[in-house]
């Protein structure tokens, strides 16, 4: 059984065909990149996979389970966590709390447990806090545990957001433009981080990225979208030579006078 299987996924927004006939199969352990010009539908693909939008057609199977009709938190609970293109941390909660609350799905206690401080509550809180502490340490953020995310440097906010996704112990990690807005130094750190996370957490990673330096150096497989359609897939080397991809990014080589 494959980790993630997407069959003929299509999504319309009114008359706009945002994603058309998208197919994908991840067996687990891959590091896949999704690229494409602006507005190609990359983030829509992520929004569909994470359950934020419902596909107009086609199906998404996560470990053989159809995610149709599941709400986003349930899809996340199945074992796939994501980050956002524009950082979406909870800014009035501390860095530590950010890493705790993201484990909400696995809390397993309710209102009365918090009021009565039951055994389930104590155990669960302890487990959640331990996971958060460990993540803070491995990501080198321990120093900022009590800080608010908005006070962190940009690169660390990204790191924290990735950490927040990892706190769910996902099998599949979706990263939406992790390098967006980063300076070259931060980009190098990020490349290191992605490689390290993959090794350390044994997680399958699927990322959207504009930054070619990141995509070409990190990804093993790349898929290219344009106007919602898949126009190419393969290894970075193959993608670099793919005619349709070059066309989509740079336009036609032929002069246009005969058009």
């Amino acid at each position: 059984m494959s980790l993630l299987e997407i069959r003929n996924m299509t999504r319309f927004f009114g008359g706009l065909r945002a994603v058309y006939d998208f197919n994908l199969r991840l067996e687990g352990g891959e590091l896949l990149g999704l690229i494409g010009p602006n507005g190609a539908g990359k983030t829509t693909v992520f929004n569909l996979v994470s359950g934020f939008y419902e596909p107009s057609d086609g199906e998404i199977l996560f470990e053989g389970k159809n995610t149709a009709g599941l709400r986003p938190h349930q899809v996340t609970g199945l074992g796939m966590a994501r980050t956002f293109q524009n950082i979406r941390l909870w800014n009035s909660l501390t860095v530590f709390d950010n890493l705790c609350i993201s484990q909400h799905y696995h809390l397993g206690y309710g209102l009365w447990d918090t009021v009565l401080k039951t055994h389930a509550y104590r155990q669960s809180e302890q487990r959640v806090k331990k996971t958060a502490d460990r993540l803070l340490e491995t990501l080198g953020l321990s120093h900022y545990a009590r800080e608010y995310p908005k006070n962190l440097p940009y690169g660390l906010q990204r790191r924290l957001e990735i950490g927040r996704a990892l706190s769910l112990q996902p099998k599949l990690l979706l990263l939406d433009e992790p390098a967006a807005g980063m300076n070259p130094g931060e980009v190098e750190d990020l490349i290191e981080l992605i490689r390290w996370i993959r090794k350390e957490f044994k997680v399958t990673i699927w990322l959207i990225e504009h930054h070619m330096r990141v995509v070409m150096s990190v990804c093993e497989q790349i898929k290219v979208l344009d106007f919602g359609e898949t126009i190419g897939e393969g290894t970075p080397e193959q993608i670099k030579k793919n005619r349709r991809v070059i066309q989509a990014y740079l336009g036609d080589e032929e002069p246009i006078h005969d058009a």
Partner: protein
Amino acid sequence: MRRFTSVSLYGLLCVLLIAAAQGQWIDAYVQIIIMFIGINIILSTSLNLINGYMGEFSVGHAGFMAVGAYITSVLNVWFFTSSKVFGPPLLTPSSAVYLFPVTLLLGGVGAALVGLLVAVPSFRTRGDYLAIITLAVNYIVKSSIENIQAIGGARGFMGMQNTVNSMKESWNLPWALVWVLVMVGATIWTIYRFVNSTYGKGIIAVRDDEIAAEIMSVDTQRMKLVAFMLSSGLAGIAGGLFAHVLGYINPGTFTIMKSTEVLVMVYLGGMGSLSGSVLSAIALTLVLELFRPLQVAKWVVVPLLLILLMLFRPEGFLGHRELSDVFPRLRRWFSPQERQS
């Protein structure tokens, strides 16, 4: 053992107040003021859960209060007293002393169910639009009660004093004060535990970024349901107490005017601050009482206070902070932020 100190301090305060009331050291007027302070603390802290911690804007808190007030009052009059409406008591009046907390909680449950009227729309809408829904719910409740003639309609409902008296006969204690103090303690404890647990902090995540919360595995619909029902349920309990302190209720008490009063308390104390809500409930109840000679002009002075507050300190006295953040020494007595790890 820090939190034991705050609990035992509160216990001591309760015992002192009850003893003072019992020994006639404080007169009936002061007792009533203390009970109103207690009721207002329940109202403001429970509304803060929605307006402060969850960041929605509810302006219909008095509606839930009315539901609780009427359910508890009707049950108590029906069960424990002989009245023109319901005839002789269904149960012996002496059982009131044991069953009063049950009817009080039933009032809370009823109010929590009416809270669904706001909670369910909140799945799809938020901000200004949800505020209008809460306003509508406030009016629905008030107008419904006005049109149920069996419970007095617009004329109001009375007879709760008899229940309080029969409780007093079985056990000579100032029961209304006792239950106000117990419920204030229970409310603060519940909300404090809730907003300091990872579970309850889910509503703060909803306030900060609802989409991120949902995608990061927080069941946002469930959290909204829990928050709205808890908040309106506590308001219902406050309403039940209010009815038994006054001995008479009418729908006209539970209008937007009353909701506004609670709103002012929340914003005066500071959004998302439990101690702020408690302090401002105490302060505002006292101020309103001092302004009583002003009569209607009171409703010029209080809104004026609100305007000044919004101009000069829009976050309230303790916006998103607790008393112990401002005065760290207080941590010896209570710790709103639970020690982490």
